[in-house]
């Protein structure tokens, strides 16, 4: 790991975030704490614990929490004991007035994230379940423990968006947390002072302008930033938000959310030679194969200069995929956007990982056991979020009541308040649900030069029509494009047609035909799809003229044998494939490939997009019968 020159200020910021959050958990909403489990994270959490108001509850939400534990529901044991429904408060309501830790936040499913988000917004838990209607206060702050390593793991946007602080502990060491600290008394004083802290229009204007300049759309970010500025003023024992507070809040809250560079850049921080070198090394690494080691390194890379932005010129591209340039963007933007009085104080840390490209990933992959059509009732204990069917349970218990009463009276001498209903473990019934398996259609598109020459535009048109069908069937779609040397997943499985449309529109064409890589990528994705319980259909659109081998070398022979091998892998796995030959005339090569992968082969002599769609629709039916699925 690179020596981290910025560690002292990053450590200070991480601790500061903990302190500011502890001053006002309710309005700053929370922290996304990006760190792998370990002593560093424990040290940060320990500091937070010390900072929080004495007696404030601190609860932890495990990954696969059930709704009844999260929100509350029927307390089974108490209900059976008392013979009447007894409600149980969930973790969120129990943590009222305190802080909730969300374990492995990057893996939390969207439904759970949405429930937590609602509670953060409304500050109460509203439940309508298990025959109960409850409304309990839940004024909480949330710490989302983000243990993601790769870029495709992200805390749900709807949570990230609501949490003020995005703290990254990667690269910090335990001893970093030893010195500079805040005393609990100091924080208590800040909490008391907080309601009296005034704000004024200039501060709000500055924050809004900064957010706009950084391309931050959500107004929630500015609200959070404002709350943080207020907490900062309270911590500094002032009754009015100062420029310094606003700058601090912009650095902590807005900088990590920046998505754009303002129209001009300013050469603020001159890079030292060492930093430049580190930066060069980073750029030399292949960017599309992030390894486990790569990500933290990139995240902890030193602050860089705005001059590299000027060099690279194309800000749009670099900001999307490189942490390094995002930092540049943020730095330059904040420098430019904040009124001149704030300029001196504003130094942005180089620690934030890119959040710009994460706009909505594929929907929640895990299935709950609680949805779908009812598929009958079985005798089992409710656990892991499976719902108890109370009526069926009672029904099962009912015939035995007289017998059991006699039994218990015989065994009990005093006969103290025998429960009205005697329910045994064997009576418990749960609902079973059948969940329709979704189809995910994977489009693997040949965007190479030869295909582009033929008709990339028409292929795109055809895919768009097919997407239309997918929309009608509520399928999920994914798009893989292969060109040049590699295949690229343009769009992970999603139900959002808007995104599919965008990924297609932005797809470039040209270059070689790495057909083998394309087929492999489609097969890999199909396997992932099966793992999450969906059934994949691959639609491969190519002219079949492979000229780039799997390893990226320019060897037509190897390219062809590689793609045949990849095709056989697909046949072995038994995926449903439609092979659409996009070349002007039917190709024997393509047909051979289609046979090898046991695909339905469609050759498309100059047909318009509409005819193509019709052909695929027909093939879809025959494909189903061919593969026999």
């Amino acid at each position, binding site marked *: 790991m690179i020596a981290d020159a910025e560690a002292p200020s990053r450590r200070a910021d991480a601790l500061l975030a903990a302190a500011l959050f502890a001053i006002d958990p309710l309005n700053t909403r929370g922290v996304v704490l990006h760190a792998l489990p370990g002593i560093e994270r424990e040290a940060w959490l320990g500091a937070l614990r010390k900072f929080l108001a004495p007696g404030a509850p601190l609860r932890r939400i495990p990954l696969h929490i059930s709704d009844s534990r999260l929100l509350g529901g029927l307390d089974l044991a108490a209900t059976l004991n008392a013979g009447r*429904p007894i409600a149980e408060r969930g973790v969120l309501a129990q943590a009222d007035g305190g802080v909730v830790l969300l374990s492995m936040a990057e893996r939390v499913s969207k439904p759970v994230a*949405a429930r937590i988000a609602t509670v953060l917004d409304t500050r109460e838990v509203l439940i*309508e379940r*298990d*025959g109960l209607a409850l409304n309990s206060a839940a004024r909480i702050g949330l710490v989302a423990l983000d243990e993601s390593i790769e870029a495709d793991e992200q805390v749900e946007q*709807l949570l990230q968006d609501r949490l003020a602080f995005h703290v990254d502990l990667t690269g910090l060491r335990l001893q970093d947390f030893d010195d500079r600290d805040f005393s609990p008394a100091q924080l208590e004083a800040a909490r008391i002072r907080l309601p009296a802290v005034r704000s004024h229009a200039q501060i709000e204007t500055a924050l*809004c302008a900064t957010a706009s300049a950084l391309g931050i759309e959500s*107004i929630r970010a500015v*609200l959070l930033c404002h709350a943080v500025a207020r907490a900062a003023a309270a911590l500094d024992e002032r009754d009015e938000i100062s420029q310094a507070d606003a700058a601090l809040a912009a650095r902590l809250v807005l900088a990590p959310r920046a998505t754009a560079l303002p129209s001009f850049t300013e050469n603020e921080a001159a890079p030292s030679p060492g930093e430049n070198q580190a930066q060069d090394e980073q750029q030399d690494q292949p960017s599309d194969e992030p390894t486990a080691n790569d990500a933290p390194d990139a995240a902890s890379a030193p602050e860089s200069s705005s001059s590299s932005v000027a060099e690279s010129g194309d800000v749009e591209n670099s900001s999307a995929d490189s942490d390094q340039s995002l930092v540049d963007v943020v730095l330059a933007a904040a420098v430019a956007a904040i009124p001149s009085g704030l300029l001196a104080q504003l130094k942005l840390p180089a620690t934030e990982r890119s959040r710009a490209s994460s706009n909505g990933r594929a929907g929640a992959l895990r299935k709950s056991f609680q949805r779908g059509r009812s598929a009958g009732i079985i005798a089992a204990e409710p656990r892991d979020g499976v719902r108890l069917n109370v009526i069926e349970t*009672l029904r099962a218990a009912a015939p035995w009541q007289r017998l059991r009463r006699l039994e218990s009276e015989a065994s009990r001498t005093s006969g103290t308040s025998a429960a009205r209903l005697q329910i045994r473990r064997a009576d418990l019934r749960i609902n079973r649900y059948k969940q329709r398996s979704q189809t995910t259609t994977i489009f693997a598109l040949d965007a190479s030069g030869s295909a582009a020459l033929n008709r990339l535009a028409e292929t795109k048109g055809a895919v768009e029509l097919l997407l239309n069908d997918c929309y009608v069937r509520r399928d999920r779609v994914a798009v893989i494009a292969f060109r040049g040397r590699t295949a690229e997943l343009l769009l992970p499985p999603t139900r959002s047609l808007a995104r599919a449309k965008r990924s297609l529109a932005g797809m470039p064409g040209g270059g070689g035909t790495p057909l083998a890589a394309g087929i492999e990528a489609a097969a890999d994705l199909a396997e992932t799809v099966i793992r999450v319980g969906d059934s994949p259909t691959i639609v491969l659109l190519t002219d079949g003229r492979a000229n780039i081998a799997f390893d990226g070398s320019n060897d037509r022979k190897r390219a062809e044998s590689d793609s045949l091998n990849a095709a056989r892998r697909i046949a072995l796995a038994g995926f449903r494939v439609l092979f659409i030959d996009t070349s002007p005339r039917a190709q024997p090569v393509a047909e051979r490939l289609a046979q090898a992968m046991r695909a339905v082969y469609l050759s498309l002599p100059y047909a318009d997009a509409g005819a193509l769609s019709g052909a695929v629709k027909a093939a879809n039916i025959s494909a189903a019968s061919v593969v026999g699925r």
Partner: protein
Amino acid sequence: MAQHFPFSAIVGQQEMKLALLITAVDASVGGVMVFGDRGTGKSTAVRGLAALLPKMRAVVGCRYGCDPADEAGACEECRAQLAQDKPRKTHLLPVPVVDLPLGATEDRVVGALDLERVLTQGVKAFEPGLLARAHRGFLYVDEVNLLEDHLVDLLIDVAASGENVVEREGLSVRHPARFVLIGSGNPEEGELRPQLLDRFGLSVEVSTPKDLESRVSVIRRRDEFERDRANFIAHWSKEDQKIQRQIAAARKRLAAVEVPDAFVERAASLCMSLGTDGLRGELTLIRAARATAALHGQMRVTDAHLRQIAVPALRHRLRRSPLDDSGSGVRVARALTELLGA
């Protein structure tokens, strides 16, 4: 009871506010679907709506809050009373705005066996659910696209028929459930089924205000609200009351608002040029325009009203061409310009 941000204090978002007010004036317009990015105040507006609605007259003791004036739509108990010609007492109730929380179970939505009474008294009784509570009011579903499918189906069914039929757990109950369905969602998080979309009368899209001035006032007001909720609500209550009077006056005026034949024709040709399916589009256009005229205190529907409501009334009814680059709102606006001139 949580204190909600006052409706009148919401900055901008004219389209959404108008749509909500239209349904408050004329529930027959149908529900409102609010699409928008995160943090644009979707939920805030709906929750603030509750405070605006003029109270409604209801039969005392009726657990569905039946309207004494509406004998045809009364629940079974009220009907039995009506048959006996008993004099019925009435009282004023706040219009329900019911929140359907994520994670709600079906039994609480449709109503179910009252467990407590079964267990303690051995009586089989029906406990009304959220649909009963929302009768004559609003049912709000935040993040509709995250709602479980079977619940969505159920909502569609009840919203369309205006009646909730419960056949479960040995119960057989039917009761009126006419409510305005308000949904909100983020299109980035998954699409809605077209069947569901079609049930909404109006569909509005909200976005974060772009200009600095309104962004600053959003921050200011939100900040004042968070710091002293009671005071802030009191401060804005006068504005809220003004809107409340506007709704009440518009309701009275509604039946008298004239819809000229020429307007009906124009609405029909707009729908034809856009190729919307069915007559629902025209009906919604006419009803929404009438409610808009009533809100503005006018007695006659004009093209100006059509311009105001055409996009929200039609944008979700266009034959879906998911890959047309221009949004459907743009297409409606284009057709409108062709029809009426710029």
